[in-house]
């Protein structure tokens, strides 16, 4: 198991290196360069040269990649073009908001999706199962930003049930402000988990060891909620890392629609000011989060399923 984790960490490191190569290569390959993007076409040659030097853009490509990675190792992702603040600090400031949003969305998805999947798996083909199945598919299909805009329109603007803007202050108020955005972001994964757990649960309930457990007189509720569920959530846990990182990514929309601070907001605002290092740092950091989340999910699966541990 330790060997496996080390291998995965190694792969993650390689992916991060390739990602930074891609990100820096983009600066060179893509027509249009960060200097004119930031300063506009009318800047003088001297200002441009100074700016390029300050950003390290006058170095050769491998040197830039090396410097960037060296910085990453020291927690340095570069500096804001205009204020000179470190990107790491900027990310640190807004990360709690995005983390709270993504976590709350994940809790929606797990808290409703998993029980819903179990419940429908126990009555396959029933009217309730078919209706809830169609609703789950609809949740998966409808884009998160549309849900965000519509929930803002209906529940905040028209009905005034929830606050429309900002992140709130104080624990209760923060939760109150989280309600709509997290639901809007989590809806898709709620539907997906419901479908995933339903099919896994139905498959597990057909397995021979479940029949054997019935023959041994194990009570039905233990069979369903312990024996079967424990196996049926494994596929769901496998995708949780993916879920968390994709929730962080779709938080961008909720942060913009609900005007909340966060990683997405940070990058979005940086587009307006052509603040390339901030965006690049955010992309790199989110990529890092993705790798951490998927690795954590794989380790969780191994803890849950002794068979997976053995197969390594």
């Amino acid at each position, binding site marked *: 198991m330790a060997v496996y984790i080390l291998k995965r960490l190694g792969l993650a490191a390689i992916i991060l290196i390739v990602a930074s190569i891609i990100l820096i290569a983009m600066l060179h390959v893509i027509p249009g360069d960060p200097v004119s993007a930031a300063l506009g076409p009318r800047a003088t040659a001297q200002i441009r040269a100074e700016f390029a030097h300050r950003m390290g853009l006058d170095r050769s490509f491998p040197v830039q990649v090396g410097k960037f990675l060296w910085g990453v190792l020291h927690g340095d992702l570069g500096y804001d073009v205009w204020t000179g603040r470190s990107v790491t600090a900027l990310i640190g400031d807004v990360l709690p908001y995005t983390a709270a949003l993504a976590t709350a969305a994940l809790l929606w998805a797990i808290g409703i999706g998993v029980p819903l999947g179990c419940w429908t798996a126990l009555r396959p083909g029933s009217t309730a199962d078919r209706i809830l199945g169609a609703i789950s598919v609809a949740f998966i299909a409808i884009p998160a930003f549309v849900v965000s805009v519509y929930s803002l329109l209906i529940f905040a603007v028209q009905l005034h049930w929830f606050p429309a803007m900002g992140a709130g202050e104080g624990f209760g108020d923060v939760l109150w402000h989280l309600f709509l955005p997290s639901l809007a972001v989590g809806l898709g994964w709620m539907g997906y988990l419901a479908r995933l757990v339903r099919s896994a649960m139905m498959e597990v309930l057909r397995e021979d060891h479940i029949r054997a457990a019935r023959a*041994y007189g194990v009570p039905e509720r233990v069979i369903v909620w312990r024996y079967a569920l424990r*196996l049926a959530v494994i596929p769901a846990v496998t995708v949780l890392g993916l879920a968390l990182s994709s929730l962080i990514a779709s938080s961008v929309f909720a942060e913009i629609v609900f005007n909340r601070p966060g990683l997405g907001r940070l990058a979005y605002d940086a587009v307006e000011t052509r603040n390339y290092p901030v965006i690049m740092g955010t992309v790199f950091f989110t990529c890092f989060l993705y790798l951490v989340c998927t690795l954590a999910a794989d380790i969780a699966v191994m803890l849950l399923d002794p068979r997976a541990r053995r197969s390594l």
Partner: protein
Amino acid sequence: MSAVLNVQDLRVTYPGAQPAVRGVSFAIARGEAVGIIGESGSGKSSVLLALMRLLGDAAVGGSAHFNGDDLVAASEECLRALRGDRLTMVFQDPQTSFSPVFPLSTQFLAALHRRAESRDAKLRLAVEALRGVGIAEPERRIRDYPHAFSGGMLQRAAIALALMSSPDLLIADEPTTALDATTEAQIIALLRDLRQRYSGAVLIVSHQPNLIAALCDRVMVMYGGVIVEEGPTAQVLKDPRHPYTRRLLACEPAHIETVTRHLPTIPGRPPDLSLLQAGCAFAERCLQKVDGCTIVEPQLLPVAEARRARCYALQSLA
């Protein structure tokens, strides 16, 4: 001697298919060991699962009185009270008899949920049960996951689990089929040994006559969803009467006396019950077929002391 199980006209039909079991009747006395042999598709496993009511959405007809309760008509609560207590089962493949994600201890404790004792007392009971089937260091092994056991050891554990409550009837579905030959012999020896200590009745299905011979007082031969012959094990195996039983036993390598490079087989295929016409299910493959065989199915009638068979050829002789 009162019967612990009395099965009358048991029928099993899977959804969208023809009947797999077409009226099976038999009784098992207290402490008696009965075997069922027959080839794949003869309906023998369906009989067992029907008695345990573990067939899902298959339709089960007839009756099966177990200590006064009709297993066919019993409510789910009544069955839950019986299963794992008075009525237990050992399955063919020990690897799929246990949930892969819990250690044995958890699964033994779940099966003992009815007992009032403390958790520790139940665990001690489970450890003793494991010791009783020959698992070394049961205190340590019980904390292992199923995949840490070999097939034979896991089947021992399954047997321990099934016998822990001293059931009135133990049902075993091909308990040695998934094991290799050496392990099979050990499990047969274990079951023989347990027969001395355990007083309940046993119903074993197998296609291996040696297992039945080693353990059972009486044997029933199934073909095409019905019993074609029954009688005391020793007599039936030594002197089979029904043409099918004779051919089946002739296929056992152990029974072949001359050295041969060709193992005998029964020509033809097991009956497709969906195409079954009137008459005897075996008629198509039978070498002693008479005119009546394909018209009306023969009855299960006495052919000797304590023996019955379902064949016109025998009944006309008797």
